[in-house]
């Protein structure tokens, strides 16, 4: 019973932290910090997918959304010299 409570409490905490990260990512003027908040939101989502018993999706989501998307957007920011 304690394990069930712990799992459900972790699910609630992860979804609330992801909402905070999304709000901070959209309203941040500095683009580098916005990419970092987006990577934090992706980490929360990946952990949530693991608790929801979807291991194939976790194996796709962790390299793609925590590694490849921020790398490509960082290349884009560097090439276009955007600071804001």
């Amino acid at each position, binding site marked *: 019973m304690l394990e069930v409570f712990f799992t459900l409490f972790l699910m609630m905490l992860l979804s*609330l932290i992801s*909402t*905070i990260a999304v*709000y*901070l990512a959209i*309203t941040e003027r500095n683009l580098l910090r916005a990419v970092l908040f987006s990577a934090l939101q992706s980490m929360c989502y990946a952990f949530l997918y693991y608790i929801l018993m979807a*291991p*194939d999706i976790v*194996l*796709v989501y962790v*390299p*793609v959304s925590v*590694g*490849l998307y921020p*790398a*490509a957007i960082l*290349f*884009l920011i560097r*090439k276009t010299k955007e600071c804001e």
Partner: protein
Amino acid sequence: MLLRRLITVSVLIVFIVLTSYTITALNVLGELPPRGLRPLALWFLNTSITPWLNYFSAMAPETVTAIVWDYRGLDTLFETAVFYFAIIASIALFRGIEEKRGGGYVGLSKIVRVVSRVLLPINIVVAASIAIHGTITPGGGFQAGSAMAVAPLILIIVFSRFFLKEKGLSKNLLIALRGAGLVGIGVASILALALGLLSGGYAFIFQNQPKEAAPTGLPPDVLGFPIAGTLFIFNVCEFIAVFAGFTIIFILLSIPEDVAREALHGEH
């Protein structure tokens, strides 16, 4: 500014908690995570690996891989085609840009280089294991391809962007690898059809195991290791194709902007 953000975040959290408490207390949505399964999910789980149902089973212990490549194989074929077209479009936007290596020392410091030399073989081995064991554990072709795509990214950042070309992985070789992976997927999808026509019978495209109207099929295991017919070939070919595609994207993105601008102004 900081105070305004704090107020907005706390208003959001209070709104979420209050709304969900109202839904739970009023009990208006019925049983919210259900306790039973839908009939379609029961059908998939009951026929995924059942050796006593001769003409219905997909003989793969991992149900999600069996759905992706066997029950709904045509969806995955067209998804691979969409990814292929996106990479072709990106190569077409950046065509004709070559770069010669100048002098000087590029790359990061020695500590980072030594650590990368230790970690990169581990990355490649883990990705190959995810691809090969795609039918018995969670994994498969696309998962392994994107896990291995981190390796050329680290090589470009830590060593230099000319490192891959000096080691032999040029852009043309990667485009050829991607084409070879897609040809492998195409051949595997008509393999059962070819075997069926050769033995004088009847077969379908994307067929994996023997079905009732078409008794030819591919073997469900090799020397005791369950490979479920065409699923193993699909996983390995998709792994090669996805890895080559991501490496092309990172090679194109790492060319600096003044070199690209020079090459493009020469076109006008």
